[in-house]
Structure formats: C-alpha cells, structure tokens
C-alpha cells in the first residue's frame, strides 16, 4: 500500500463522512428517527429520576445514563454500520468506490467519520436535556467528562469492526435488519444497562461480560457516577484495568478480522453481481 496516496484517500473519506452526515441531517426521515430515539431515552430517564439503586443513594436515572450512552455507540457503530454496509453493497455504492483508486479506503474512513458525527449528534440530543433533571451526572467535573469521552472512543473501536463484520457477512440489508435487531436486543438485555448486572442470574452475568457494551457502560459509570455507586457493580469494583483490557481485546480482534472480511467482500463486487441483486430486490417489491 502506498502510504501517501492512501492517506490522501482517507482525507477524501473524511469529506465523504461529513457530506453523508449532513445529507442525513437534512433528510426529514433521519431527523425524525434521531428525535424519536432521543425522546424514548429521555422518557425512560425521566420516569426513573426519583428511585435509587438498591443499597446506594445513586439515582436509577444516573445509573442508566452511562449505559444508554454505551447503547447509542453500539447501535450506531455496530448495527448502523452493518445496515449501511449491506445496503450500500446492494445498491452499488461500494462498487462505485471500488472503481476509483483507494476508493475502499475512502469508503471505510467515510463510514467512520459519519458514525462519529452521528454519535456526537445523538448524544448531545440526549445529554443536554438530561443534564437538567438527572442528578449528579456531571458531579466529577471536566476531567471525568474527558475520561468518559475516552471510554466512548475506545468502546466505538470495540464495536465498529463488529459492524463491518456483520455487514459483510450478511448478503442483504433485510437480513441484517432482522437478525441484527435480535442480536442487539439480546446484547442490551445481558449488558446491564437498565439494571445492575450484579443483581442478575450468574449465566446472564457471564454472557454480559462477554459483550463490549457491558464494559463500555462500566467504564462510563466509573467516570460519571459518584464513587459510592461502585457497590452496585460486580465484585463491588470498577475493575478499570479489566475494562480497558476487555475493550482493547474486542477492538484489536475486530481490527484484525474486519479488513480481511471487507477485502473478501469487496473483491467479489462487480457490475453483474450488483445487477443480479438489483433484479432480486426489485422482484420482491
């Protein structure tokens, strides 16, 4: 790989991501989606603003918020990217970029930037209103916020390759929609977002600790919640080193596997394979 030209293609990809994000913000359909999802999350937080996590004086809403941020990252990074990849493979976007020099590099970096902007945007939509009624989320000041951003970025790199892997394994966006939602639902349930994982059955705890979302949520809670909230966690500890290690394992594993699968998928793209999928998709309508 020629470094200077592929770096150049990454810059083209950054612009691509920005344009894609702006196109999405301009589209009424997408804006409606952002707003509805944010509203749902805010309603859940609002309903839980008064209760406290058993054995602590931390409000349930404050406990949930870091998990919801982790969920947003997982949703945009894994499910969103997988859907985009499957859709854009079917409609010929990927082939279009494969036909230009280092276009696939531009495509992948474009996805990355688009997801980053999307996550930032949807978090602002939730965090700004939440700051008014969720007690004590910014209690630890700007340093804690910086730590939270660190966990979010690390978490994104842990789930993003997963998105590329799922998107390149499934043949069309419909199956990503079906299976992806099922898997995401299961992941949300076992990763201790709505109730502390420590209070759940052992087998759920084991499954939950295999997901990157649990560790992302734990890392975020460790920076955003008061120190006293630690008693609600497994082993009564933030397990900081363990958190970083788990997220890194996910990220590194994904970063090794994703390019291999992506290359394999991109290699198989041609005008006639896109045409064949178009025929198939149009027959369904």
């Amino acid at each position: 790989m020629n470094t200077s030209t592929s770096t150049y293609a990454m810059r083209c990809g950054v612009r691509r991501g920005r344009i894609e994000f702006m196109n999405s913000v301009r589209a009424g359909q997408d804006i409606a989606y952002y707003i509805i999802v944010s509203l749902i999350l805010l309603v859940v937080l609002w309903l839980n603003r008064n209760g406290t996590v058993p054995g602590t004086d931390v409000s349930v809403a404050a406990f949930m918020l870091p998990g919801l941020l982790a969920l947003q990252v997982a949703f945009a990074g894994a499910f969103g990217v997988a859907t985009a990849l499957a859709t854009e493979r079917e409609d010929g976007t990927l082939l279009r970029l494969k036909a230009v020099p280092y276009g696939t590099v531009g495509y992948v970096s474009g996805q990355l930037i688009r997801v980053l902007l999307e996550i930032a945007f949807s978090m602002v939509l939730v965090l700004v209103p939440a700051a008014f009624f969720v007690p004590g989320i910014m209690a630890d000041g700007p340093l804690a916020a910086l730590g939270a951003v660190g966990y979010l970025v690390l978490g994104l790199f842990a789930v993003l390759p997963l998105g590329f892997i799922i998107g390149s394994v499934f043949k069309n966006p419909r199956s990503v929609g079906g299976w992806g939602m099922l898997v995401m639902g299961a992941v949300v349930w076992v990763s201790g977002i709505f109730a502390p994982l420590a209070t759940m059955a052992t087998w759920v705890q084991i499954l939950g600790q295999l997901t990157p979302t649990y560790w992302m949520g734990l890392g975020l809670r460790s920076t955003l919640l008061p120190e006293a909230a630690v008693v609600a966690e497994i082993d009564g500890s933030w397990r900081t080193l363990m958190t970083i290690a788990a997220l890194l394992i996910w990220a590194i594993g994904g970063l090794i596997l994703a390019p291999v699968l992506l290359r394999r998928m991109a290699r198989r793209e041609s005008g006639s394979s896109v045409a064949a999928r178009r025929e198939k998709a149009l027959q369904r309508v």
Partner: protein
Amino acid sequence: MSSHTLEQTAAVDVTNLRMRYGTNDVLHGVSFSIHRGEVLVLLGPNGAGKTTTIEILEGFRKPSDGVVRVLGENPATADERWRSRVGVVLQSWRDHGRWRVWELLDHLGSFYAPYSEPNRPRPYPTDELIETVGLGEHRNKKVSSLSGGQRRRLDVAIGIVGRPELLFLDEPTAGFDPSARRDFHDLVHRLSDLQDTTILLTTHDLDEAEKLADRILILNHGRIVADGSAEELAHAVAGTAEVRWTQDGRRQVHSTPEPTEFVRQLFAQERGAAGPFAVVHDLEVQRPSLETTYLAMVAQEQLAHDDAVGRHQAVLEEVALQQESSR
C-alpha cells in the same frame, strides 16, 4: 523496457482467455487486443460472455485461465495507480441518492488528484465535466431526482472524471432516448479524438456499433466469431450489394459483389441505347447493413453450434448402441 513497448502498442492484450463457472464454460479461449486510441465495440447476443469479458478486464473478476494485460498489467493483481488510469462506467441504480450531482462528481474525482500527470491533469475539473455531459442545470439536484437518461450521463461523467487512458462501458446507452443517444455518441467521439482515450464498449444496438466502432468484435457462445471494421464484416459475410434503378418505366434490382463496376456498365449501356425511356433514374446502391451481417453471422454460428451438439449426441448414441450390442 519490454513492458513499456508493450504499452505503446496495445492498451489491452488478451490471450486464450477462459472462464468457467462450475461446469459451465462461459469463455472458451478468447484472444484479442485493443490498440491505443482505438474504439472497440463488443457485440453479441445475451449470454455470449460480453459482460464477463469486460469485468475480467476491469479487474472485478478473476479468469479461470489465460493471459490478460490491460495497460501493461494483470488487472487481477494491478495496484491503485493502474486503477487511476482506467475508467469504468457503471449502471447506477439508487446509490448516492441523497448526494447532489456536483458534490458526488467532485468527491469521486478527488481520489484521482495524487495521480495527476502534466499531460493528463487529474481529475477533470468538475464544473467543466458537468457541462460536457450536459448536466449543468442539474448540478445541485439530488441524484435520486434525476431521470434515467440524466443518471446515465452522470454515470459516464463519473467513469471519465479521472481522465482515463482506457474506458470501459457496458451497455452505456440502454434506456436512452434518441437525442440522449446522439449526445452520448458525440461525447464518445470527443473522448477518443481529443483525449486519445482507448474505449471498449458493449452494446446490443448495431447502429450504435456502426457509428462508434473503429473495430467490432462479435462474441457468441464464448467465442469470437468475427473481428474487423463494420465494412470488413459486411464483406466477409454477405459480400453482395443491391443496385436498384428505374428504366423503361420499370423498377429493376440486381445483386452484385462489385456494385461500382456494375453501375459503370449500366451507364455505358444507357448511352448505347436510344430513346427517353432508356434513361436510368432513381439509382440506389445498398451495401449490406451491419444488422444483416450480424444476424447472418450469429445464425451461421448457431447452426455450427447446433451441428456440433448434434454430432456429439450422435456419437453418444452410437457408444450407447455399441455398449448394448457388446453385452
């Protein structure tokens, strides 16, 4: 440098290209080359192997066997610099539907900037190219709101935005109305004349092939059955022209392989004859059209193919009979 001299002679060089899907042979040892600056049209019925051939040359498909050289390199292993010298016109469906026309062309063009050369500045300036393909007034429209013909013009613009040395077009004018088709033909002529672009295109439209091609290849059942200019092909198959004229108040028709000589004799005979009725008028000389030629060639080939299948069947039956009798 041998690769350099090769590049100067041929943009594409294919020897004994074979493609097999499972047990189904799609290309049976196809060989041809395209010279620099040439416009080659690949003709053939559906399923002849046109798309497979073009996708192998584009580097999107690996051949089962054979030697392929495109701009001096093997497309299956060529790098991104090679990619920057090759243009591919794809059929759009609904990709980049939310993008604006100008934005998309400018974005895809930007990937070519590191490959700019003094005599071939890359990419093509976006504004200029948009005007060239006649999308000037639609530059700020969303791609999804373009009509079919406008979309195809955008496809062509995307294919040439990197100022390719070699351009591939797979059925570029499918779904064009006559005026869009004429505009497109003008564009192809301009590309090949001014930019010295080598062009390979496939089409079903014989008229289009005749208008654009320096040379025509006819592919049938995975084999090349004809290779030459439109006139050469016409001569090779139906070598006769029809001469029609009116004389003595009657319409006359004569078929001849030498129409010029025949007309000369016709006038000589007219001068020898007497009276106003002997005057030749409404003279027409009709050479066989590419359509007649093409249909004749594909039909001949079909006969040969059926024949071969028939012979094969006969041999099988004979073997079966022998086995029967030897029992």
